[in-house]
């Protein structure tokens, strides 16, 4: 992460890019057109709507949002839940990804499949599965009750716990995969060298392995955090209204209140804050290094 190390690949990428524009780069054209038509243009239209609906709205929709007790609270809840989910994913995902790097390739492949299999089923199915497990009359409570371990059902869902459990499980692959990609490229000889030089195992890990794995930590955390900000159905099913997230409120404004101007403003606010979070993160670590480490496998 020293300055010379980061500037060199950047320079080489620029020169490679120059030669590519004339040839293979045209293959990206359909994707670029698609993104502009179906992503960038709607975003611009939505931003315009946030200040023109109702006619002459100006900043009225934004003022309305920030003067609403519920809207501001829900925005806070959204960032709070996204943060907790990210931390939980990191706490679970880091040791898991580390384990994947130290076992035999066969076991490592098996562990990878364990992470990916839930990834293949729909978010909705997994959320309902959590509900069947966690509710008062659910599997966990029924078992605990029948074994006499508890006298009354535990409240495992319709609270923050349920939401975090459900979201963390759904988001875990987005943490494990970037971590694993970075960790497997860390030369095991480095930690061994540290041990040879007299570092106790934990010190070797903390001072050698951990810093080298940081790009993976940042990449995974950003991915999970940004995805978590947009969660909608999982907090609705596994949480109580106290865990309502902003996407749900946006949908309510669109579908029930028909207030598309305010809905647009809410979406713009969420988007702006997401960008702010990314910018803040980029001050800690250069995003290009983080995601670059994912793309150019050596």
């Amino acid at each position: 992460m020293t300055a010379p190390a980061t500037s060199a690949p950047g320079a080489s990428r620029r020169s490679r890019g120059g030669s590519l524009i004339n040839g293979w780069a045209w293959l990206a054209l359909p994707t670029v057109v698609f993104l502009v038509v179906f992503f960038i243009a709607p975003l611009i239209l939505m931003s315009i709507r946030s200040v023109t609906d109702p006619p002459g709205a100006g900043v009225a929709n934004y003022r309305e949002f920030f003067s609403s007790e519920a809207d501001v609270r829900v925005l806070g809840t959204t960032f709070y839940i996204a943060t907790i989910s990210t931390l939980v994913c990191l706490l679970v995902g880091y040791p898991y990804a580390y384990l994947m790097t130290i076992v035999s390739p066969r076991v490592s492949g098996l562990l990878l499949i364990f992470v990916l299999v839930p990834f293949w089923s729909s978010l909705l199915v997994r959320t309902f599965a959590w509900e069947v497990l966690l509710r008062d009359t659910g599997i966990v409570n029924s078992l605990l009750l029948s074994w006499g371990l508890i006298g009354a059902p535990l409240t495992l869902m319709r609270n923050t716990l349920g939401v975090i459990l459900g979201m963390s499980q759904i988001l875990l692959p987005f943490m494990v995969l970037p971590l694993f990609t970075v960790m497997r490229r860390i030369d095991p000889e480095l930690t061994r060298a540290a041990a040879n030089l007299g570092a106790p195992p934990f010190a070797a890990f903390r001072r050698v392995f951990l810093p080298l794995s940081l790009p993976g930590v940042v990449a995974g955390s950003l991915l999970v955090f940004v995805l978590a900000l947009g969660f909608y159905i999982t907090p609705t099913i596994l949480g109580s209204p106290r865990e309502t997230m902003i996407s749900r409120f946006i949908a309510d404004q669109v579908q029930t209140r028909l207030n598309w101007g305010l809905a647009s403003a809410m979406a713009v606010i969420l988007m702006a804050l997401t960008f702010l979070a990314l910018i803040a993160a980029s001050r800690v670590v250069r995003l290009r290094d983080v995601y670059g480490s994912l793309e150019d496998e050596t």
Partner: protein
Amino acid sequence: MRSLSRPTLMLAAVALLISACSGGASPAPSGAPTTAPTTAPSGASAAPSAGADVCTAPTAKAGTTLTFASYGGVYQEAQRKGWLEPYSKLTGVTFTESEDSSNATIKSQVESGQVTWDVVDVGNDFGLEANADVLEPLDFSLIKKDEILDGFVGPYRVADITYGVVLAYRTDKVNGQVPQGWADFFDLTKFPGKRGMYDYSAGGVFEVALMADGVAPKDLYPLDIPRALKKLDTIKDQLVFWPGGAKSQELIGSGEVAMSLMWNGRAWSAKHLDNKPVEIQWNQQLLTSDYLVVPKGTPNKDEAMKFIAWATCAQNNAAPSQYIPYGPTNKNSKPQADKIPDLAVSNVNDSTAYFDDKWLVDNAKPLDDAWNAWKTK
């Protein structure tokens, strides 16, 4: 809906019960078995004023296709079997259906000028003056306004089915007692256990809290929001919120909740289709309805009006109630005898409450803001 006359409704309910009893006790002179659909011609005698053509011999322009949008599931199936299929047979009109009726879609269709829905079944929070810019005024030279329950028809909408927002309870979770009304719903000492609640500010949440707090049904409006929220606070930790009817049926069916505010059709389904120990307390039900509206600018406006007129006629209006206990809105309609006890209109009494749709729509924003602020706190 404050203008709604309760005596009229009670009379209608009594009339329904009488017709049920007579129909069930003696062999029908016309030879119609008691299970005959209510579209039997005998119903016509009850409405001599009804113009025979619109109700009994409707006609349509050849090759007409109408798009009917409703809420899907068993509900729309009942409307299909009760109305769409018979109407197709009579007139040759073909129906395309959409199962995701939503106020937002009507708005977007009208705004974009691409109106593809001709007849839409909407909830009681839509179709008032506030939505005049996206709806066609109904043709009351065809639709028999006078036969519709008082208060259930307006310039842009006519009620097609009635239902009740009721207190449903698990018979195995009330210690052998019967909850008598919303006060018992809020009494966690007498009836411990969780409560299902609709997560919608205009869905009855404030009304039932006020009734539980002793407000008479006729004095509900204007809603005393702080008082309702204070009452709701007393059971907040025990509330389980449901976003739509299917979830309410599942919550009470699985026993997650001991009681729930529910739509009577969903409580009926939990009992009769899922075979769960669920009963309805009809006291203090909120009687309300779904409405038919016509989005502004549909090319099939005239045919849509004819269909709506036919479906709200005395002879035809109760037909879906054979399949799901959502009752008629035409005062002269006669539902099938064995279905009558399960209909909200048959269970109207002094304690029955009604939504004031106009007040709810006019005050939608403060109501919604108060609800959102309370529930997320």
